[in-house]
Each structure stands twice: as structure tokens, then as C-alpha cells.
């Protein structure tokens, strides 16, 4: 009677160990890490318009008018004369977003000033690298970043240009690279 009981116990332990061994051989476990970099939305704000002020057209020929992208002084040449009395400035835009991030900048090469049917084509002169058209925001990742975009401009002024007030607009767009 005592022998029978021992045999039954041995069989029981074998039956229990079999399935457990098979399960370990058919599974494998590894770990993946998740990550994300959260960056601030990008905002572009115009700070200053591109204002050439008052300019006298040349008596003959074609003059030139320009303002540098780091100056508020308008320069007239070849007979075009710049008058005082109106505030002049190059255009300024402020970019805010995530620090140390590269943004692509898009702006037109030219835009038109118009007065009724009369137009003047202005060639823009940005202060960023126009080959890459990219700007890196100041600051570091995890903190606010910013950049300033400056645009000067120039145009030809023929003696035949109609006098009057000319205005026009142009758009600048920035996007995370």
C-alpha cells in the first residue's frame, strides 16, 4: 500500500513538468523603447513693412532706388532723388518656435507696387542664405527659439514712371524642415 502511493506521486510530478517545459521553448521576449520629440508651433509675425518713402523720378533715363536689409536709409542713384519726410525701413519678420530647429523660408524674388494701372517691380534682398533658404532658430531644444528675417529691396525708376503713391504686399512663409 505504501509503494502504490509513491508511484502515483511520481507520475503526478512528471505530468506537471511536461507542459511547462514546452511553453518556455515557444516564446521570446524583447523590449522596444518609444520616443517622441514635441516641438512648439511655428509662428511668423511681420514687425516692419518695406517703406521706400518719397522719391523724385529722374528727369531722363532710369534711376535706381534701394534699401539694404540692415538699413533704414533709402539710396537713390542715376537721377532718382530721395526726399525726407516719410519714415523709411526695410521689412522685418519675427519667427518663433522651438529652439535649435531648422526652418525653411519661402519668399518671392520680386513683388509689385501698384498705383492704379501703374506698377513698379521691386526685387527683394533677404538677409538669409537664399541658396538653402534655411534658418536655424536661436535657443536649444526644449526651450523657445526665435529668428529675425530682414528683407531690403530695390527697383528701377524711369523718368516716364507716373508719379503718385504706390503700394503692394508680399508673403513670407516659414516651415519646420
Amino acid at each position, binding site marked *: 500500500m505504501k509503494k502504490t502511493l509513491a508511484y502515483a506521486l511520481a507520475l503526478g510530478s512528471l505530468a506537471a513538468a511536461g507542459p511547462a517545459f514546452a511553453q518556455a521553448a515557444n516564446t521570446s521576449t524583447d523590449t522596444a523603447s518609444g520616443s517622441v520629440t514635441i516641438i512648439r508651433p511655428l509662428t511668423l509675425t511681420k514687425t516692419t513693412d518695406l517703406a521706400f518713402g518719397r522719391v*523724385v523720378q529722374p528727369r531722363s533715363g532710369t534711376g535706381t*532706388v534701394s534699401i539694404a536689409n540692415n538699413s533704414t536709409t533709402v539710396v537713390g542713384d542715376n537721377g532718382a532723388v530721395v526726399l525726407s519726410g516719410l519714415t523709411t525701413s526695410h521689412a522685418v519678420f519675427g519667427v518663433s518656435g522651438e529652439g535649435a530647429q531648422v526652418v525653411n523660408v519661402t519668399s518671392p524674388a520680386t513683388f509689385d507696387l501698384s498705383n492704379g494701372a501703374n506698377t513698379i517691380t521691386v526685387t527683394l534682398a533677404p538677409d538669409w542664405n537664399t541658396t538653402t533658404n534655411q534658418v536655424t532658430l536661436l535657443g536649444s531644444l526644449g526651450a523657445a527659439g526665435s529668428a529675425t528675417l530682414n528683407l531690403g529691396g530695390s527697383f528701377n525708376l524711369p523718368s516716364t514712371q507716373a508719379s503718385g503713391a504706390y503700394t503692394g504686399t508680399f*508673403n*513670407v*512663409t516659414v516651415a519646420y524642415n
Partner: protein
Amino acid sequence: MRKKAMLLTSALAAFSGAPAFAQANAAFAQEGSASAQGSVVIEQPVGSGIAYNVLTSAVSSVFLSGRSGDAVSLTSAVRGGDAVILSTDTYPVSLGRAGGAPGPQGQANLLFLAQFN
């Protein structure tokens, strides 16, 4: 059956619009745009000319050339300081002395300054 199928198509279309909306919001957050205004005021050139009599060698008057409404400050040895508002594009300025005194007939030199303001 046809009506039902159309309804189902509409519902699917509306459902598929949701991701597009989310994408638009994402695009807006990752870019920014702004516009600037350009401006310039083009003025006609201004100037002055003189009326000169070759027989008497006399300068009788000065003509200012500008635009009607221009304000011009004048300074001359004859008239002293003065200011005029142009009523026409070409404006004659008499060089006669104030009070009807004789003008600069026969004068060899004439100093005249006109400043458009």
C-alpha cells in the same frame, strides 16, 4: 438598394474627412506665414528757369517748375526770404522789389535759391 448604397458612400466620405482635418491642423502648426506691405511715393522732379532778355541783358523773372500745391521757400538778394504755393505746374516768380521798386534790370549776377518743401 441604389439609395442605400449612395447613403453608405456618403457616410464613408464624411468619415474619411476626419484624417484630412487633422492633417490640416498639423500643417498649420508646423508652418507660419505673414505678409508685409511695400510702399513708395514717386514725385515729379522740380526745378527752376529764368526769363532772360538778350537785348537788355536783364533777367525779368524766375519760373518754378513743380506740381500745383507744392510749397517753395525762396531766397534771393532782391526779394529776400519768401514762400509761395504753386498754383500751376509752372509758376512765374517776379523778381521786382517789394513795394513796386525796380527789378534787377541790368544786374550782372543773380543769386536765387528755391527749396521745394
